[in-house]
């Protein structure tokens, strides 16, 4: 144990003895990719977070900020891990101005809980990510995860107005503000979103909120041929329609999402489009989409019932859980791809999966992502080996400026593969920024791109 008794005493002084965790069985819950910390603390205020980080810096304790701990599988295993910084006690809504559509919250708050509050005012934050019911605002910001609604709303980078945070240097700082338009100073919050806790511990986030659409519907078109589904997707993108979500599911993916094949077909490629807005806008989408689906020679086209719709989007949103249920060694390769290359990239990925005899499924997000799932039925050495080879080959598949990340995989795969892919020419700048924020490398060391 790297954390001496003296350090533990000082941590207890900061957060209170009842919020200091030293018991091994409790600490096991804070493990990140199998690495267990020596101590965990649960600070209750940003002030306490600052004190803890200062102490961590002076004691050189490798510290990982954590929330609901559902997303810790993202990234590399930590190079060191001494102190778990549990932020779930920071769960207050600090300010909500529904008339201004702005919000300031502490990051330990669960997004599902927050959206319940916002729903009372007919508003929401479009951060409907995997593990929606449990995940915290901080977890979403650290990973920059998004959901199907990114098609209409973008990611947190598009609607975070400002952040308050504690840098690895132990400074309490902020960037941005609380108003919807602001260019004062550097947008440091853009750097922090998706930095996996390597630069600073975010304590407070300010958001723009969005009105809940008064009406919504989901249309499904199914195709025997992949190219026709992709063709329809392109046609929709070229049209004046503005769906809120637009996804294509491979046959296996459809089978996983709707095992009883109530509304999807496991023998077809399915295109799912959600339309939202007032009723007339929704109806216009429904009729135009039907025409376009016919034109694209869809094998069938239907409008989901409200219940089917809910099931469909929940499953799409929860693709990592769906994958984990389907396979003990589920591996999800996230391929950021220009939409015109979807077909080509899918074909390459399918060839690789099939060459390694790995069952696969795919979820194509029209915003420019293929989630390619490798779903072997076993998790033995031989399977892990072929998974690793397949993952490496998939990560080399980079077409026209795209990028590939191993988003979720068994920890064993991370021994030989950097999940972030190979670093690019801007790594040197990233290292300098890391040093500017966290000069003693105490925050989440080793978990990020290029060993940061």
């Amino acid at each position, binding site marked *: 144990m790297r954390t001496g008794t003296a350090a533990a005493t000082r941590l207890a002084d900061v957060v209170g003895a009842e919020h200091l965790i030293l018991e091994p069985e409790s600490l096991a819950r804070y493990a990140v990719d199998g690495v267990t910390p020596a101590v965990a603390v649960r600070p209750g205020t940003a002030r306490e977070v600052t004190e803890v980080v200062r102490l961590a810096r002076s004691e050189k304790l490798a510290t990982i900020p954590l929330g609901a701990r559902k997303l810790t599988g993202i990234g590399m295993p930590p190079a060191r891990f001494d102190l778990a910084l549990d932020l779930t006690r920071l769960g207050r809504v600090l300010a909500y101005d529904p008339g201004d559509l702005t919000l300031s919250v502490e990051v330990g708050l669960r997004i599902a809980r927050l959206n319940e509050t916002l729903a009372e005012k007919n508003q929401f934050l479009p951060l409907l990510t995997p593990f929606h019911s449990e995940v915290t605002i901080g977890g979403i910001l650290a990973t920059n995860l998004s959901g199907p609604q990114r098609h209409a709303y973008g990611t947190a980078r598009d609607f975070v107005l400002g952040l308050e945070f504690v840098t690895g240097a132990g400074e309490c700082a902020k960037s941005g503000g609380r108003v919807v338009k602001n260019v004062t100073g*550097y947008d440091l919050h853009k750097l922090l979103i998706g930095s996996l806790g390597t630069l600073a511990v975010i304590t407070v986030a300010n958001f723009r909120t969005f009105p809940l659409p008064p009406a919504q519907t989901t249309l499904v078109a199914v195709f025997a041929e992949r190219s026709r589904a992709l063709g329809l997707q392109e046609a929709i993108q070229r049209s004046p329609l503005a769906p809120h979500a637009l996804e294509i599911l491979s046959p296996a993916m459809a089978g996983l999402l709707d095992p009883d094949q109530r509304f999807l077909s496991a023998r077809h490629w399915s295109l799912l489009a959600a339309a939202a807005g007032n009723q007339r806008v929704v109806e216009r989408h429904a009729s135009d989409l039907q025409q376009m689906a016919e034109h694209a020679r869809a094998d069938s086209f239907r409008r989901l019932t409200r219940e089917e719709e809910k099931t469909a989007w929940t499953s799409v949103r929860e693709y990592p859980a769906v994958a984990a249920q389907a396979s003990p060694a589920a591996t999800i390769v996230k391929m950021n791809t220009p939409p015109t290359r979807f077909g080509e990239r899918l074909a390459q990925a399918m060839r690789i999966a099939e060459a390694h005899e790995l069952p696969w499924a795919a979820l194509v997000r029209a915003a420019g992502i293929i989630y390619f799932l490798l779903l072997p039925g076993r998790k033995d050495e031989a399977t892990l080996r072929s998974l690793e080879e397949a993952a490496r080959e998939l990560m080399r598949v980079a077409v026209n400026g795209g990028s590939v990340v191993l988003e979720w995989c068994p920890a064993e795969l991370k021994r030989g593969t950097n999940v972030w892919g190979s670093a690019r020419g801007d790594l040197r700048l990233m290292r300098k920024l890391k040093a500017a924020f966290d000069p003693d490398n105490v925050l989440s060391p080793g978990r990020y791109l290029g060993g940061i």
Partner: protein
Amino acid sequence: MNRRILTELARLLGKENVLHEPEDLLLYEYDGSVEVARPDCVVFPRSTEEVVGIVRLASRHAIPVVGRGAGTGLSGGALARHGGIIMVFSRMNRILELDLENQRAVVQPGVVNLDLSKAVEHAGLYFAPDPSSQKACTIGGNVAENAGGPHTLAYGVTTNHVTGLELVLPNGEVVRVGSKTVDTPGYDLTGLLVGSEGTLALITEITVKLSRLPEAVKTLLAVFDAVDDATETVVDITARAITPAACEMLDGWTLRAVEAFVHAGFPLDSAAVLLMEVEGLREAVEWQAEQVREVCLRHRAREVRVARDEAERQRLWSGRKNAFGAVGRLSPSYYVQDGVIPRTKLPVTLRKIDEIGRNHGFQIGNIFHAGDGNLHPIILFDSRDAEQFERAVATASEIMAFCLSLGGALTGEHGVGMEKSELMPLMFTPEDMALMRRVHDAFNPTGLLNPGKIFPTGKGCGEIRAQPLPLSATSP
């Protein structure tokens, strides 16, 4: 400037691409702001390689380098505050790639904002950020300042439309950040660079998103007999989450000044007008227009006029976009601010601005992006009168302090530049500033790139010098 350096620059770029005679430098002492600063020379690179050459030379001789597009900025961002070289990107103005199917364009920084939209219009696409200077301003300048515009209310500012950049660092290193695709792994350097006001790197290539042109557009002009009714309307429109694509306000004084100059069709006897646009699917536009109209009438709008055709629509917008030129005819000098407030606080803020103006004996006009709470109070004064100038600065500071007391921001779209650098401590703590300084130094350790911007120099606000602006002055 040292002859030898000029000779080296001329060898690098050709004589015709280096200006150094005082009369040639005059134009580059100004931008669209009230600031003035004289460069030692002005250069016009044609390629990234030439930019690298200039930067290396400047670094060897410890000369500041300031990037500049069309010089329409409103905060002194493109002025050589500490002298040195101004690098004008007007000859790097090629559109390098149009990837229409993936809705991306790759452009050099000198491409004029509106020219990109024109180049992709045939495919039903456009570049969404629309600063009022869009006929002249460059995309490089938009990126440096994270420019906004009337339609950013619905579509976001420049940062929401840039996915990748090519940078030249002050040591001459060329680095690419971001890409054409989403979610490039690693820190969002593109997000940091957009809006960094040329203080971190020179940008030599920009990858932008192209947006789809809306199927339908409706432009509405609501006419009010009281300023409060207009601001309450904006509060209500926001609260009902109607989200027009644009929602601009002109108060009575400003619209009369504009009308005399532009003849946009604003009623001369009104206290305020709201110029609003709703866009999207036909069905959405009809619904939104109806909602907007209803809210306006509820707040005692005298009239809600819908532009009948494109000509009328353009006329109304020309009133908005040429407003600052119109104001320039009325006063020897004017000072435009750019503070932002929560939209719910619009009525009280406008009343306060009026009160502050009257206390200081100034006419303050208001023309601004009401929908996102981005104010542009215009203080009219005569800069030849030192006492008036002092009072104008005091008035501006009082307005800004009030905005910040409401939880607002110093600048919504014009940037900090040299105009507001001394005001930064009003918004940011010493720790915030120290961190920004370290980020600055990670890119620009010698401080030779656009020095004297964003960070306080300790010289105080009195440095703000006001000058009469020419009629062609650009507007926000």
